[in-house]
């Protein structure tokens, strides 16, 4: 059954839901079945393909950032998915990697989370965010790339690096139509067993969701407010609004060289 035989196909205009699909008998037609399977395959790959941190590390280093790489105590994807507690804990060798750096206002952790594909948005986001933070006079510590990591892994990282605040950029649980969403979690003065209510979250960061400019604008606003008011979480509201035209008008997608 094709669209012209579905009298209500015009309703597709109002939603991205999979409506007016037609039917084979009363079952799913082949075309729609294959579309669904392909979307599921993309979401599955987002979860299971190993994150490629090397390109990001190289870009960051070329731009003059100090880059550190750590691993959680979850050895592989299977363990990561079964044991959220291990994904929140640093592997023992990570402490050596994190030692000997000066204290800072902000440390940024880029974590694979549940979507390696989302990491593609980390560089364009950082290209907008880092100059904004430094322009506001904040010191930004090393960029920490974390494998098999959950949001709360940022807490021990920030403690080891003596940062006032940690921002974790992490691949979100992928949806069928959004396999590459990046989430950003901000925590002021993180401690072991920090509660989720003490974090602020900006989610669905991807070109077809919340774009890089509004995301960077909101994060910069939240970070400055958190540091000024010395708190984060439910007491800190996202009141940034839309970015002004002048903000990152050129929409950098790469970090500057050196």
């Amino acid at each position, binding site marked *: 059954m094709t669209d012209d035989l579905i*009298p*209500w196909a015009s*309703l*597709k*205009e*109002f*939603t*991205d*839901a*999979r*409506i*007016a*699909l037609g*039917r084979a008998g*009363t*079952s*799913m037609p082949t075309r*729609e079945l294959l579309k*669904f*399977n392909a*979307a*599921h395959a993309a*979401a*599955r790959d*987002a*979860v299971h393909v190993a994150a490629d941190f090397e390109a990001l590390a190289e870009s960051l280093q070329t731009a003059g950032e100090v880059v550190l790489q750590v691993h959680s105590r979850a050895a592989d994807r299977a363990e990561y*998915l*079964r*044991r*959220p*507690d291990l994904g929140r804990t640093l592997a023992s060798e990570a402490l050596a990697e994190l030692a000997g750096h000066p204290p800072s206002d902000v440390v940024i952790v880029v974590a694979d989370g*549940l979507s390696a594909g989302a990491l593609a948005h980390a560089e364009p986001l950082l290209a907008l965010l880092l100059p904004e933070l430094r322009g506001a006079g904040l010191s930004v510590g090393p960029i920490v790339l974390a494998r098999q990591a959950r949001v709360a892994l940022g807490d021990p990282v920030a403690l080891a690096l003596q940062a006032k605040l940690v921002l974790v950029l992490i691949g979100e*649980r*992928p*949806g*069928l*139509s*959004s*396999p590459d969403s990046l989430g950003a979690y901000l925590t002021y003065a993180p401690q072991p067993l920090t509660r989720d209510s003490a974090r602020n979250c900006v989610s669905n960061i991807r070109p077809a969701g919340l774009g890089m400019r509004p995301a960077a604008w909101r994060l910069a606003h939240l970070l400055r407010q958190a540091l000024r008011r010395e708190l984060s979480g439910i007491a800190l509201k996202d009141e940034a609004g839309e970015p002004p035209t002048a903000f990152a008008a050129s929409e950098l997608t790469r970090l500057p060289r050196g």
Partner: protein
Amino acid sequence: MPEPPTYHLTLGQRHFSFRDLRRLMACASPLKSGDELAGIAAGSSQEREAARQILADLPLSLFLEDLLIPYEADEVTRLIVDSHDAAAFAPVSGLSVGEFRDWLLGDEATPETLAALAPGLTPEMVAAVSKLMRVQDLILVASKVEVVTRFRTTLGLRGRFSTRLQPNHPTDDPRGILASTLDGLMFGCGDAVIGINPALDSVDSCVGLLRLLDDFRQQTGMPTQSCVLTHVTNTLEAMARGAPVDLVFQSVAGTQDANSGFGIDLALLDEAHAAGLELRRGTQLAGGFGDNVMYFETGQGSALSANAHHGMDQGTLEARAYAVARRYRPLLVNTVVGFIGPEYLYDGKQIIRAGLEDHFCGKLLGLPMGCDICYTNHAEADGDDTDTLLTLLGAAGVTFIMGVPGADDIMLNYQSTSFHDAWYVRHMFDRPPAPEFAAWLEKMGLSRDGGLTLPGRAQLRELMGAAGG
């Protein structure tokens, strides 16, 4: 000095001991990642079978004495103990857990005897016997149970099968929600409820959605009920504002602490139930007035996820949530079986088993059990697994499933069952929707002699018109 372990068994060359009934129940459970995460799963397959052999010989009545969470410590335990009907329990009170399995499979366990027995069973008893059952046992026994509930449709009649139409939208856009609703109605879905999970949790927004669905229902004369699945305190506030609330929704769990994590207790649910009844928005149906006004959702793993599991396995905790649900004679109870993620149910095998256990336990306790047969993209599961569970639950006589456009919920980002899937069950098991709704479908030209048809122009215009164009 710690107490010596209470339960012992030598199986082959190995000796196993279990320190208490909670531990024994956990070890007797089929393998689930959530019980492993809690550190209470059996350490080996032999340990699991040893636990099952011990469990099989324990008297059912033990669960009335050895309360897995103390009476003083937990209001769900108090509810279970205080509402236990000893007279109803009498026919099986002398049986062991293993003998109870045999009894359930036998000829004595008819729809009538099972209905009479339900108030005599506790969640721990049904959870215990479920651990001794194979998949076919869970299906066979559940299929004998008939639980009928009413609001504007009569649900759960033998040989019928209903659907919740789930027209979610990522921004609660009214046109988007009505577009998905119409699509579902064209497929004959929505006789259990048209239920929206709202993206925005404000009372204003929920009231707007309730009015949207109620206006649509009134214009089309469609015999069904609507629900916005928001926190019970929001629904109470919406009712106070005069919003058209058909069903009062709430997620519930099996311990007081886990319910506290949901921001509820029994007193609050009592208040909400009374407020829902007072509206008398149901209708007089063939079997009685529609006064089942609650809609509950549950799911294995919710107590552990709230760190409120008391060292109990997630299957038993889930059955305890049904004790909370049955206090309120709900229209619908929905176990959302694969939504919570792989740290609680790792793969298709675990999701399928959990869905069948939940349906079995809920039905034995007298609840109108439906199942959101679903998975997330980080679980080891796919459409073949949902098809398998759908088929098995169809055979088991599940009361209702979800109808989500194309099985893809674009608001909650998970995959459930589609309108097409509902028709698969109708064909395979010859199960039409609730009688009132089936008659309306025929009248609207959406079905003919029970088969799916394309609506005529006039009916299509009427439906589209009711949706605002």
